[in-house]
């Protein structure tokens, strides 16, 4: 067996070296635009590089056998590999050339899809969607030392790297596409976009709406087939408010979509069918089970009828009753279904904590009834899936919903785990609970709730699967002045936003070390400096692997202007875009 293994490797090795030997003599070599940092006698020849299978890169440190079959690359390894160990090859395959100030069309680029097939961008007027296909620049060089050659002029053009597939108008005249919203369903290559009209801030709270939440006249979710830009389905919400920025109010898990209507406090669960239809599955909020509404309505009708009969009897008997008989109105007198579940869960939990009856009553009075109105006033702020049946719901007060982590302490927030099938609350924590933090620290991966269909989302580095990320977390914890503040700050990121982390291997903490303040896997803007951002190897020899310098090549002219930059990393290829924006600040008045 041992001999057989060795032989296989040698055969592959010899085969590869033969190929190289053949091509070297001619000097006519087709090179890749972004050469690898492998030793020079390795040249990766592609017959046709296919983007279809990102998992084609998987190998271990030693030994490696490479072969091409039918135009696809795939790598064998003699041993089995761990999930997070499988991308070590990217230590050698890094971007090594920067093209500055590329002349690109005036679009706002959103992100690469998680399988690397499409680049999503929106037109500057936020009315159209433009989708590009990332492709690879290739050129041939006939000289002897091709290594030291500069890139050809066509490398400076945007079109050399991206091909426009189509341009689709999504928003009508008074609507705008939400630039920060995009969800990708990888299995069917569907994309979800959102358009909305202008926000109305002082909308009156009618029809069960929550006071203090703005209203948008029309929010439309568009489901598109990204292969050709065909609009498959739309879902419209009228006079409602959904938090669209950075996918905060929407979560996609497999084919299930949850949309949180903040204004009416309803969690809409939709299913994206393979045919492209958006099917409404259930609405959790006022009612938990599908037949709750029917039950209450039928009871309400029954009560109304019996009241009518009683009143007729009373009138008939000429007996005047001073007792005011109010019409039963389930909409006003009952709390919403989810709130009832929550309150009864809290009550039961507190009740079971004590065995002595007097202590029980005391505890209930102190911890439950004293804060009863506050609990009733809690509203749903954010929701994510934990699996197909469980939701993680964040409750908060009306004012503190859109809190940033530095304001976390002023407004209490609560997190509940809700089972959609049994309609039960499984657990309920305050935002600073030790128990919740322990779960977060140990099982952070499972809070990310990635779809089972997409393998590469398992590669996201978090402090639960990566020792370096865990060390970073521990160092922040040690430096924090108060542990409860620290826990609140960490837990304020729960529930997580969907598809907010890039699966690019260059953000893998076990491969590279980089400055978290300047660049990270989250798709948020970061403060930009003139210094390049370095990516350093995690293992020996701890060398600098590559640098990213956002901004112009020579550095910016005005060093004092505040600049922000964001980065779009291709999930598979060693290709990254950086966009830098200078914020124009008004000069101070001289007095």
């Amino acid at each position: 067996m041992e001999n057989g293994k060795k032989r296989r490797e040698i055969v592959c090795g010899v085969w590869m070296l033969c190929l190289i030997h053949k091509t070297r003599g001619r000097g006519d070599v087709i090179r890749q635009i972004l050469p690898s940092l492998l030793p020079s006698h390795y040249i990766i020849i592609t017959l046709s590089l296919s983007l279809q299978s990102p998992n084609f890169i998987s190998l271990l440190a030693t030994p490696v056998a490479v072969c091409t079959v039918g135009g696809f690359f795939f790598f064998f390894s003699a041993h089995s590999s761990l999930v997070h160990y499988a991308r070590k090859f990217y230590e050698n395959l890094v971007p090594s050339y920067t093209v500055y100030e590329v002349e690109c069309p005036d679009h706002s680029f959103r992100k690469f899809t998680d399988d690397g097939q499409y680049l999503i961008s929106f037109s500057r007027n936020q009315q159209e969607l433009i989708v590009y296909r990332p492709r690879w620049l290739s050129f041939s060089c006939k000289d002897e030392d091709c290594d030291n050659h500069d890139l050809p002029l066509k490398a400076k053009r945007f079109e050399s790297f991206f091909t426009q597939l189509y341009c689709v108008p999504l928003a009508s005249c008074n609507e705008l596409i939400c630039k920060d919203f995009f969800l990708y369903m990888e299995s069917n290559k569907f994309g979800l976009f959102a358009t909305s009209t202008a926000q109305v801030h002082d909308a009156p709270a009618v029809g069960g709406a929550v006071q203090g939440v703005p209203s948008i006249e029309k929010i439309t979710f568009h489901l598109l087939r990204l292969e050709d830009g065909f609009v498959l389905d739309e879902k419209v919400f009228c006079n409602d408010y959904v938090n669209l920025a950075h996918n905060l109010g929407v979560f996609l898990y497999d084919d299930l979509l949850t949309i949180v209507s903040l204004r009416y406090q309803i969690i809409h669960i939709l299913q994206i069918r393979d045919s492209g239809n958006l099917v409404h599955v259930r609405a959790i909020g006022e009612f938990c089970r599908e037949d709750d509404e029917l039950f209450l309505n039928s009871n309400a009708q029954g009560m109304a009828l019996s009241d009518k009969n009683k009143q007729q009897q009373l009138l008939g008997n000429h007996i005047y009753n001073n007792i005011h008989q109010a019409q039963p109105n389930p909409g006003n007198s009952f709390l919403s279904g989810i709130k009832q579940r929550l309150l009864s869960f809290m009550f039961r939990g507190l009740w079971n904590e004590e065995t002595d009856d007097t202590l029980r009553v005391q505890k209930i009075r102190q911890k439950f009834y004293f804060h009863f109105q506050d609990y009733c006033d809690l509203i749903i702020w954010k929701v994510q899936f934990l699996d197909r049946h469980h939701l993680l719901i964040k409750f908060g007060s009306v004012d503190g919903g859109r809190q940033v982590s530095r304001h976390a302490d002023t407004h209490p927030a609560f997190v509940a785990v809700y089972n959609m099938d049994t309609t039960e609350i499984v657990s309920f924590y305050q935002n600073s609970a030790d128990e919740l933090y322990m779960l977060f620290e140990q099982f952070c991966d499972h809070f990310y709730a990635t779809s089972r269909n997409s393998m590469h989302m398992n590669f996201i580095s978090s402090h639960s699967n990566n020792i370096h990320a865990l060390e970073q977390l521990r160092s922040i914890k040690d430096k924090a002045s108060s542990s409860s503040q620290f826990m609140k700050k960490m837990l304020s990121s729960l529930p997580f936003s969907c598809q907010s982390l890039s699966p690019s291997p260059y953000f893998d903490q076990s491969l590279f070390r980089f400055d978290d303040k300047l660049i990270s896997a989250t798709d948020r803007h970061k403060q930009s400096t003139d210094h390049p951002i370095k990516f350093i190897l995690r293992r020996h020899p701890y060398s600098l692997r590559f640098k990213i310098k956002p901004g112009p090549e020579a550095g910016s002219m005005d060093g004092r202007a505040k600049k922000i930059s964001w980065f779009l990393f291709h999930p598979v290829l060693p290709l990254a875009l950086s966009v830098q924006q200078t914020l124009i600040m008004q000069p101070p008045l001289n007095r």
Partner: protein
Amino acid sequence: MVVPSTFYSQQPPFCAHNQFHHIPERSQLISQITLPISHSSNFLEVCCSLCLMDSVLGNWPSYDPHNFSQLRTSDPSRSSKMAPATYHSIHNRDVPPADQVINTEHKNILLREIYRRAEEKLTPKRAASDNLIPEHGSKQPRVSTLSF
């Protein structure tokens, strides 16, 4: 992605067919090992019987010759109380018994932990006795039949 596991069951595409004829002793070894398993239903008995077959195990090198000195080959009373009878299917048409198949737990580990803590909180009195009763989501001891 081509899974290397299937690789071992087939010949590698780059090696010629006749390069495998130096490995007959391994295949012989396998056939020797399978023989006692089909007749004996107890894994430990199999181990013991293998130890008795000096030609199979006795010549295998080990760091410390005393490593297997504790193993009592002639102790049928002890071995019979250990593992339950394992069913070994000798043909494809049979489905293995339900408690001898490993399935993936539907709930992920986070939810299992959340449910476990919730159950602990709801029943504080029975916390001590709960340790003796297996939890709802725990795996029953199963014989592993890993298939690669």
